[in-house]
Protein backbone atom coordinates (compact mmCIF):
# COMPACT_ATOMS: atom_id res chain seq x y z
CA UNK A 1 0.00 0.00 0.00
CA UNK A 2 1.40 3.34 -0.94
CA UNK A 3 2.51 5.74 1.70
CA UNK A 4 0.88 8.47 -0.36
CA UNK A 5 -2.51 6.86 0.15
CA UNK A 6 -1.98 6.63 3.90
CA UNK A 7 -0.80 10.22 4.07
CA UNK A 8 -3.78 11.41 2.10
CA UNK A 9 -6.10 9.45 4.35
CA UNK A 10 -4.53 10.98 7.45
CA UNK A 11 -5.05 14.45 5.99
CA UNK A 12 -8.67 13.57 5.35
CA UNK A 13 -9.32 12.31 8.88
CA UNK A 14 -10.55 15.66 10.29
CA UNK A 15 -13.26 15.87 7.64
CA UNK A 16 -14.16 12.25 8.11
CA UNK A 17 -14.44 12.79 11.85
CA UNK A 18 -16.76 15.72 11.34
CA UNK A 19 -18.92 13.67 8.99
CA UNK A 20 -19.02 10.76 11.45
CA UNK A 21 -19.76 13.15 14.29
CA UNK A 22 -22.76 14.41 12.37
CA UNK A 23 -23.98 10.89 11.64
CA UNK A 24 -23.61 9.49 15.11
CA UNK A 25 -24.32 12.55 17.19
CA UNK A 26 -21.17 12.56 19.27
CA UNK A 27 -17.47 12.61 18.73
CA UNK A 28 -16.60 9.42 20.55
CA UNK A 29 -19.07 7.26 18.69
CA UNK A 30 -18.06 9.07 15.55
CA UNK A 31 -14.43 8.14 16.11
CA UNK A 32 -15.48 4.53 16.48
CA UNK A 33 -17.14 4.81 13.10
CA UNK A 34 -14.07 6.48 11.63
CA UNK A 35 -11.96 3.64 12.94
CA UNK A 36 -14.21 1.09 11.28
CA UNK A 37 -14.16 3.03 8.06
CA UNK A 38 -10.40 3.31 7.96
CA UNK A 39 -9.96 -0.38 8.62
CA UNK A 40 -12.36 -1.24 5.84
CA UNK A 41 -10.70 1.19 3.46
CA UNK A 42 -7.25 -0.12 4.24
CA UNK A 43 -8.40 -3.68 3.71
CA UNK A 44 -9.88 -2.75 0.34
CA UNK A 45 -7.31 -0.28 -0.85
CA UNK A 46 -6.84 -2.29 -4.01
CA UNK A 47 -10.31 -1.12 -5.02
CA UNK A 48 -9.23 2.51 -4.84
CA UNK A 49 -8.28 3.35 -8.39
CA UNK A 50 -6.18 6.15 -9.68
CA UNK A 51 -8.35 9.14 -10.39
CA UNK A 52 -10.91 8.28 -7.74
CA UNK A 53 -11.63 10.89 -5.12
CA UNK A 54 -10.66 9.82 -1.65
CA UNK A 55 -13.33 11.91 0.05
CA UNK A 56 -16.18 10.40 -1.96
CA UNK A 57 -14.81 6.92 -1.46
CA UNK A 58 -14.40 7.33 2.28
CA UNK A 59 -17.75 9.02 2.73
CA UNK A 60 -19.35 6.12 0.88
CA UNK A 61 -17.63 3.55 3.05
CA UNK A 62 -18.50 5.40 6.23
CA UNK A 63 -22.10 5.91 5.21
CA UNK A 64 -22.48 2.23 4.38
CA UNK A 65 -20.98 1.09 7.67
CA UNK A 66 -23.15 3.46 9.63
CA UNK A 67 -26.34 2.35 7.90
CA UNK A 68 -25.35 -1.29 8.28
CA UNK A 69 -24.81 -0.65 11.94
CA UNK A 70 -28.18 0.97 12.31
CA UNK A 71 -29.83 -1.94 10.62
CA UNK A 72 -28.03 -4.55 12.63
CA UNK A 73 -28.41 -2.89 15.96
CA UNK A 74 -31.78 -1.35 15.23
CA UNK A 75 -30.84 1.33 17.62
CA UNK A 76 -31.44 4.98 17.24
CA UNK A 77 -29.54 6.99 19.76
CA UNK A 78 -31.41 9.43 21.87
CA UNK A 79 -28.78 10.65 24.26
CA UNK A 80 -26.60 13.32 22.78
CA UNK A 81 -23.86 14.32 25.17
CA UNK A 82 -21.97 17.48 24.60
CA UNK A 83 -18.49 16.73 23.41
CA UNK A 84 -15.67 17.83 25.54
CA UNK A 85 -13.91 19.01 22.43
CA UNK A 86 -16.43 21.78 22.13
CA UNK A 87 -15.39 23.14 25.47
CA UNK A 88 -11.76 22.93 24.46
CA UNK A 89 -12.36 24.84 21.27
CA UNK A 90 -14.26 27.78 22.63
CA UNK A 91 -12.93 30.58 24.72
CA UNK A 92 -16.01 32.70 25.15
CA UNK A 93 -18.19 31.39 27.95
CA UNK A 94 -21.51 32.62 26.66
CA UNK A 95 -20.67 31.58 23.14
CA UNK A 96 -19.86 28.16 24.49
CA UNK A 97 -23.27 27.85 26.13
CA UNK A 98 -25.03 28.96 22.97
CA UNK A 99 -23.05 26.59 20.79
CA UNK A 100 -23.76 23.69 23.10
CA UNK A 101 -27.45 24.33 23.08
CA UNK A 102 -27.51 24.65 19.35
CA UNK A 103 -25.38 21.63 18.70
CA UNK A 104 -27.51 19.63 21.06
CA UNK A 105 -30.69 20.81 19.38
CA UNK A 106 -29.37 20.04 15.93
CA UNK A 107 -28.11 16.64 16.98
CA UNK A 108 -31.46 15.80 18.50
CA UNK A 109 -33.22 16.92 15.37
CA UNK A 110 -30.86 14.99 13.12
CA UNK A 111 -31.52 11.94 15.19
CA UNK A 112 -35.15 12.09 14.23
CA UNK A 113 -34.47 12.15 10.51
CA UNK A 114 -34.33 8.98 8.50
CA UNK A 115 -30.78 7.68 7.99
CA UNK A 116 -30.84 8.60 4.30
CA UNK A 117 -31.79 12.18 5.04
CA UNK A 118 -29.28 12.46 7.84
CA UNK A 119 -26.54 11.33 5.50
CA UNK A 120 -27.52 14.06 3.07
CA UNK A 121 -27.47 16.73 5.74
CA UNK A 122 -24.06 15.60 6.90
CA UNK A 123 -22.64 15.54 3.39
CA UNK A 124 -24.10 18.76 2.10
CA UNK A 125 -24.80 21.00 5.07
CA UNK A 126 -22.02 19.91 7.39
CA UNK A 127 -19.25 18.88 5.03
CA UNK A 128 -20.21 21.18 2.18
CA UNK A 129 -20.04 18.57 -0.53
CA UNK A 130 -21.54 19.56 -3.86
CA UNK A 131 -24.81 18.04 -4.99
CA UNK A 132 -23.06 16.20 -7.77
CA UNK A 133 -20.51 14.65 -5.43
CA UNK A 134 -23.24 13.86 -2.93
CA UNK A 135 -25.22 12.08 -5.61
CA UNK A 136 -22.13 9.99 -6.31
CA UNK A 137 -21.68 9.09 -2.64
CA UNK A 138 -25.28 8.09 -2.00
CA UNK A 139 -25.86 6.60 -5.42
CA UNK A 140 -28.96 8.51 -6.47
CA UNK A 141 -29.59 11.07 -9.24
CA UNK A 142 -28.85 14.68 -8.46
CA UNK A 143 -32.54 15.55 -8.70
CA UNK A 144 -33.25 13.04 -5.95
CA UNK A 145 -30.54 14.62 -3.85
CA UNK A 146 -32.24 18.00 -4.23
CA UNK A 147 -35.72 16.80 -3.39
CA UNK A 148 -34.56 14.75 -0.41
CA UNK A 149 -32.40 17.58 0.78
CA UNK A 150 -35.31 19.98 0.64
CA UNK A 151 -37.38 17.58 2.73
CA UNK A 152 -34.55 17.02 5.13
CA UNK A 153 -33.88 20.70 5.64
CA UNK A 154 -37.50 21.55 6.20
CA UNK A 155 -37.85 18.75 8.73
CA UNK A 156 -34.64 19.79 10.41
CA UNK A 157 -35.74 23.39 10.65
CA UNK A 158 -39.10 22.43 12.10
CA UNK A 159 -37.62 19.95 14.54
CA UNK A 160 -35.01 22.35 15.80
CA UNK A 161 -37.49 25.11 16.31
CA UNK A 162 -40.06 22.83 17.90
CA UNK A 163 -37.51 21.14 20.07
CA UNK A 164 -36.27 24.03 22.13
CA UNK A 165 -36.51 27.73 22.35
CA UNK A 166 -32.78 27.96 22.31
CA UNK A 167 -32.75 26.36 18.91
CA UNK A 168 -33.23 29.77 17.39
CA UNK A 169 -29.50 30.15 17.67
CA UNK A 170 -29.41 28.37 14.35
CA UNK A 171 -31.02 31.37 12.79
CA UNK A 172 -28.39 33.38 11.02
Amino acid at each position, binding site marked *: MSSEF*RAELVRFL*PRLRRFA*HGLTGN*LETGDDLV*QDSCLRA*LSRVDQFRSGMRLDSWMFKITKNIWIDRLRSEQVRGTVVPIDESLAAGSSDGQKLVDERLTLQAVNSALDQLSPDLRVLICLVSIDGLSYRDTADVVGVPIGTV*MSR*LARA*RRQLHDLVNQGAGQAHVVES
Partner: protein
Amino acid sequence: MEQKVTDEILVAYADGELTPEEHAALETRLAADPVLAERARVFLNTGRTALSDLYDDGLNAPVPKHLRALVLDNAQATGVANSVRQWWRRFRTDRPFEAGMATAFGWKHATALSLGLVIGGIAGWTGYGLNQTSHPIGSIGVVAHGDVLTALETQPAGHSLPLDNSGRRDTTFKVLLTFHSRTGEICRQYHLARQKQAQTRSTPSFVGVACRQSGGDWRIMAHVPVSQRTSAADKVTTASHPKNQSVEAVVDDLITGDVLTLEQEAGLINRHWKVAQ
Protein backbone atom coordinates in the same frame (compact mmCIF):
# COMPACT_ATOMS: atom_id res chain seq x y z
CA MET B 1 -45.92 33.89 -16.16
CA GLU B 2 -43.15 33.30 -13.69
CA GLN B 3 -42.01 29.81 -12.97
CA LYS B 4 -43.02 28.35 -9.61
CA VAL B 5 -40.18 28.36 -7.15
CA THR B 6 -39.98 24.90 -5.66
CA ASP B 7 -38.30 23.88 -2.43
CA GLU B 8 -35.67 22.16 -4.54
CA ILE B 9 -34.79 25.46 -6.15
CA LEU B 10 -34.73 27.23 -2.81
CA VAL B 11 -32.47 24.66 -1.23
CA ALA B 12 -30.16 24.85 -4.23
CA TYR B 13 -30.14 28.62 -3.89
CA ALA B 14 -29.27 28.37 -0.21
CA ASP B 15 -26.44 25.99 -0.99
CA GLY B 16 -25.04 28.02 -3.86
CA GLU B 17 -25.85 25.36 -6.39
CA LEU B 18 -27.71 27.58 -8.85
CA THR B 19 -25.99 29.11 -11.84
CA PRO B 20 -25.10 32.79 -11.45
CA GLU B 21 -28.00 33.71 -13.74
CA GLU B 22 -30.50 31.59 -11.80
CA HIS B 23 -29.15 32.95 -8.54
CA ALA B 24 -29.53 36.57 -9.61
CA ALA B 25 -33.02 36.01 -10.95
CA LEU B 26 -34.16 34.35 -7.76
CA GLU B 27 -32.71 37.11 -5.60
CA THR B 28 -34.75 39.62 -7.54
CA ARG B 29 -37.90 37.66 -6.79
CA LEU B 30 -36.97 37.16 -3.14
CA ALA B 31 -36.54 40.89 -2.71
CA ALA B 32 -40.02 41.47 -4.02
CA ASP B 33 -41.81 38.60 -2.33
CA PRO B 34 -41.69 38.38 1.51
CA VAL B 35 -43.53 35.05 1.55
CA LEU B 36 -40.98 33.54 -0.80
CA ALA B 37 -38.18 35.07 1.24
CA GLU B 38 -39.59 33.43 4.37
CA ARG B 39 -39.64 30.08 2.60
CA ALA B 40 -36.04 30.56 1.54
CA ARG B 41 -35.04 31.39 5.10
CA VAL B 42 -35.87 27.84 6.18
CA PHE B 43 -33.18 26.53 3.86
CA LEU B 44 -30.70 29.28 4.47
CA ASN B 45 -30.91 28.68 8.21
CA THR B 46 -30.12 24.99 7.78
CA GLY B 47 -27.49 25.52 5.16
CA ARG B 48 -23.77 25.05 4.99
CA THR B 49 -22.75 28.07 6.98
CA ALA B 50 -25.26 27.50 9.75
CA LEU B 51 -24.56 23.82 10.32
CA SER B 52 -20.94 23.25 9.41
CA ASP B 53 -19.83 25.82 11.97
CA LEU B 54 -21.43 23.76 14.72
CA TYR B 55 -19.22 20.82 13.94
CA ASP B 56 -16.04 22.71 13.22
CA ASP B 57 -14.72 22.24 16.73
CA GLY B 58 -14.50 18.56 16.03
CA LEU B 59 -12.93 19.33 12.69
CA ASN B 60 -10.28 21.52 14.24
CA ALA B 61 -9.55 19.31 17.23
CA PRO B 62 -6.44 17.14 17.00
CA VAL B 63 -7.08 13.75 15.46
CA PRO B 64 -6.77 11.07 18.15
CA LYS B 65 -3.45 9.34 18.08
CA HIS B 66 -4.94 5.92 17.69
CA LEU B 67 -6.72 6.92 14.49
CA ARG B 68 -3.56 8.35 12.99
CA ALA B 69 -1.64 5.28 14.04
CA LEU B 70 -4.30 3.04 12.59
CA VAL B 71 -3.88 4.60 9.17
CA LEU B 72 -0.13 4.94 9.23
CA ASP B 73 0.67 1.64 10.86
CA ASN B 74 -2.16 -0.69 10.03
CA ALA B 75 -0.31 -3.95 9.78
CA GLN B 76 -3.12 -6.27 10.72
CA ALA B 77 -6.48 -4.93 9.69
CA THR B 78 -7.88 -8.38 9.81
CA GLY B 79 -11.01 -10.18 10.76
CA VAL B 80 -9.71 -10.26 14.28
CA ALA B 81 -9.89 -6.50 14.40
CA ASN B 82 -13.44 -6.61 13.19
CA SER B 83 -14.30 -8.99 15.94
CA VAL B 84 -12.68 -6.78 18.51
CA ARG B 85 -14.39 -3.67 17.34
CA GLN B 86 -17.78 -5.30 17.41
CA TRP B 87 -17.18 -6.05 21.02
CA TRP B 88 -15.81 -2.67 21.85
CA ARG B 89 -19.00 -1.15 20.62
CA ARG B 90 -20.89 -3.03 23.25
CA PHE B 91 -18.83 -1.45 25.94
CA ARG B 92 -18.63 1.99 24.56
CA THR B 93 -20.02 4.49 26.93
CA ASP B 94 -21.29 7.88 26.03
CA ARG B 95 -20.44 9.03 29.51
CA PRO B 96 -17.17 10.73 30.16
CA PHE B 97 -14.73 8.94 32.38
CA GLU B 98 -16.10 8.96 35.86
CA ALA B 99 -13.48 9.30 38.48
CA GLY B 100 -15.92 7.85 40.94
CA MET B 101 -15.64 4.48 39.31
CA ALA B 102 -12.16 4.08 40.62
CA THR B 103 -13.48 4.60 44.09
CA ALA B 104 -16.51 2.46 43.57
CA PHE B 105 -14.41 -0.46 42.49
CA GLY B 106 -11.34 0.35 44.48
CA TRP B 107 -8.97 -1.72 46.46
CA LYS B 108 -11.17 -2.23 49.46
CA HIS B 109 -13.19 -4.53 47.27
CA ALA B 110 -10.12 -6.21 45.98
CA THR B 111 -9.34 -7.56 49.41
CA ALA B 112 -12.03 -10.12 48.81
CA LEU B 113 -10.05 -11.41 45.93
CA SER B 114 -8.44 -14.74 46.46
CA LEU B 115 -4.82 -14.78 45.45
CA GLY B 116 -5.17 -18.48 44.94
CA LEU B 117 -7.82 -17.93 42.39
CA VAL B 118 -5.64 -15.57 40.44
CA ILE B 119 -2.69 -17.88 40.49
CA GLY B 120 -4.90 -20.75 39.53
CA GLY B 121 -6.23 -18.73 36.67
CA ILE B 122 -2.78 -17.93 35.47
CA ALA B 123 -1.78 -21.54 35.58
CA GLY B 124 -4.83 -22.51 33.62
CA TRP B 125 -4.37 -19.88 30.96
CA THR B 126 -0.68 -20.27 30.46
CA GLY B 127 -1.03 -23.98 30.31
CA TYR B 128 -2.68 -23.71 26.97
CA GLY B 129 0.21 -21.80 25.52
CA LEU B 130 3.04 -24.06 26.49
CA ASN B 131 3.18 -26.02 23.31
CA GLN B 132 2.31 -23.26 20.94
CA THR B 133 4.46 -21.73 18.35
CA SER B 134 4.93 -18.00 18.52
CA HIS B 135 2.43 -15.71 16.94
CA PRO B 136 3.25 -12.34 15.48
CA ILE B 137 2.85 -9.65 18.03
CA GLY B 138 1.58 -6.24 17.29
CA SER B 139 -1.32 -3.96 17.67
CA ILE B 140 -4.46 -4.97 15.84
CA GLY B 141 -5.30 -1.33 15.36
CA VAL B 142 -7.64 -0.88 18.28
CA VAL B 143 -7.29 0.93 21.55
CA ALA B 144 -9.58 0.46 24.50
CA HIS B 145 -12.05 3.13 25.39
CA GLY B 146 -15.15 3.68 27.44
CA ASP B 147 -15.81 1.23 30.23
CA VAL B 148 -13.10 -1.13 29.06
CA LEU B 149 -10.53 1.62 29.28
CA THR B 150 -11.75 2.46 32.76
CA ALA B 151 -11.50 -1.17 33.79
CA LEU B 152 -7.97 -1.52 32.45
CA GLU B 153 -6.90 1.63 34.23
CA THR B 154 -8.50 0.97 37.58
CA GLN B 155 -9.33 -2.66 38.16
CA PRO B 156 -7.20 -5.11 40.10
CA ALA B 157 -6.67 -8.52 38.62
CA GLY B 158 -9.35 -11.05 39.36
CA HIS B 159 -12.14 -8.59 39.96
CA SER B 160 -15.09 -8.97 37.60
CA LEU B 161 -16.50 -5.66 36.56
CA PRO B 162 -19.96 -5.48 34.98
CA LEU B 163 -19.81 -3.32 31.90
CA ASP B 164 -22.55 -0.98 30.96
CA ASN B 165 -23.87 -2.52 27.79
CA SER B 166 -26.76 -0.29 26.83
CA GLY B 167 -27.77 -0.29 30.45
CA ARG B 168 -28.10 -4.04 30.68
CA ARG B 169 -24.79 -4.62 32.40
CA ASP B 170 -24.81 -8.14 31.04
CA THR B 171 -21.13 -8.30 30.25
CA THR B 172 -18.25 -8.66 32.62
CA PHE B 173 -14.63 -7.70 32.21
CA LYS B 174 -11.92 -9.22 34.31
CA VAL B 175 -8.21 -8.57 34.27
CA LEU B 176 -6.45 -11.89 34.62
CA LEU B 177 -2.91 -10.75 35.15
CA THR B 178 -0.56 -7.82 34.76
CA PHE B 179 3.01 -7.95 33.57
CA HIS B 180 5.91 -5.96 32.15
CA SER B 181 6.64 -6.36 28.47
CA ARG B 182 10.08 -6.65 26.97
CA THR B 183 9.61 -3.26 25.38
CA GLY B 184 8.98 -1.58 28.72
CA GLU B 185 5.21 -1.39 28.67
CA ILE B 186 2.75 -2.60 31.23
CA CYS B 187 0.41 -5.20 29.78
CA ARG B 188 -2.72 -6.83 31.11
CA GLN B 189 -4.41 -9.99 30.02
CA TYR B 190 -8.15 -9.91 30.32
CA HIS B 191 -11.27 -11.99 29.96
CA LEU B 192 -14.47 -10.61 28.66
CA ALA B 193 -17.72 -12.51 28.88
CA ARG B 194 -21.35 -11.93 28.26
CA GLN B 195 -23.70 -13.40 30.75
CA LYS B 196 -26.73 -15.43 29.79
CA GLN B 197 -29.83 -16.05 31.77
CA ALA B 198 -29.90 -19.72 30.95
CA GLN B 199 -28.35 -21.96 33.55
CA THR B 200 -26.13 -23.82 31.15
CA ARG B 201 -25.31 -22.35 27.85
CA SER B 202 -22.34 -21.53 25.71
CA THR B 203 -21.79 -17.82 25.66
CA PRO B 204 -19.54 -15.56 23.63
CA SER B 205 -16.36 -14.84 25.46
CA PHE B 206 -13.01 -13.36 24.61
CA VAL B 207 -9.55 -13.24 26.00
CA GLY B 208 -7.01 -10.67 25.04
CA VAL B 209 -3.98 -8.63 25.92
CA ALA B 210 -3.75 -4.86 26.16
CA CYS B 211 -0.55 -2.89 26.64
CA ARG B 212 -0.40 0.62 28.00
CA GLN B 213 1.34 3.06 25.69
CA SER B 214 3.38 5.99 26.91
CA GLY B 215 0.54 8.35 26.08
CA GLY B 216 -1.93 6.42 28.21
CA ASP B 217 -3.73 4.45 25.51
CA TRP B 218 -4.29 0.76 26.11
CA ARG B 219 -3.48 -0.84 22.80
CA ILE B 220 -5.02 -4.21 22.11
CA MET B 221 -2.31 -6.66 21.16
CA ALA B 222 -4.49 -9.74 20.84
CA HIS B 223 -8.12 -10.57 21.25
CA VAL B 224 -9.60 -13.93 20.42
CA PRO B 225 -12.89 -15.66 21.05
CA VAL B 226 -13.10 -18.53 23.44
CA SER B 227 -15.89 -20.86 24.24
CA GLN B 228 -17.17 -20.22 27.69
CA ARG B 229 -19.18 -22.78 29.49
CA THR B 230 -20.95 -21.90 32.66
CA SER B 231 -21.64 -24.65 35.04
CA ALA B 232 -25.10 -24.59 36.51
CA ALA B 233 -23.85 -26.21 39.64
CA ASP B 234 -21.23 -23.83 40.84
CA LYS B 235 -21.35 -20.89 38.42
CA VAL B 236 -17.63 -21.28 37.85
CA THR B 237 -16.61 -20.12 34.44
CA THR B 238 -13.82 -21.87 32.68
CA ALA B 239 -12.16 -21.01 29.44
CA SER B 240 -11.65 -24.25 27.67
CA HIS B 241 -11.27 -23.61 24.01
CA PRO B 242 -7.94 -24.10 22.32
CA LYS B 243 -8.31 -20.82 20.47
CA ASN B 244 -7.11 -19.01 23.54
CA GLN B 245 -3.73 -20.53 22.92
CA SER B 246 -2.88 -17.71 20.60
CA VAL B 247 -3.31 -15.16 23.33
CA GLU B 248 -1.12 -17.16 25.59
CA ALA B 249 1.54 -17.28 22.90
CA VAL B 250 1.32 -13.51 22.66
CA VAL B 251 1.80 -13.23 26.41
CA ASP B 252 4.72 -15.62 26.22
CA ASP B 253 6.39 -13.45 23.64
CA LEU B 254 5.63 -10.19 25.38
CA ILE B 255 6.35 -10.92 28.99
CA THR B 256 9.55 -10.24 30.79
CA GLY B 257 10.02 -11.17 34.40
CA ASP B 258 7.26 -12.46 36.59
CA VAL B 259 3.60 -11.63 36.60
CA LEU B 260 3.07 -8.75 38.98
CA THR B 261 1.80 -9.46 42.45
CA LEU B 262 -1.41 -7.83 43.59
CA GLU B 263 0.63 -5.43 45.70
CA GLN B 264 2.82 -4.43 42.78
CA GLU B 265 -0.25 -4.03 40.62
CA ALA B 266 -1.98 -1.91 43.27
CA GLY B 267 1.05 0.35 43.43
CA LEU B 268 0.97 0.90 39.70
CA ILE B 269 -2.74 1.68 39.68
CA ASN B 270 -2.33 4.12 42.53
CA ARG B 271 0.54 5.82 40.69
CA HIS B 272 -1.51 5.93 37.50
CA TRP B 273 0.75 3.34 35.94
CA LYS B 274 3.98 5.21 36.49
CA VAL B 275 6.72 2.71 37.15
CA ALA B 276 8.56 3.38 40.40
CA GLN B 277 12.19 4.41 39.87
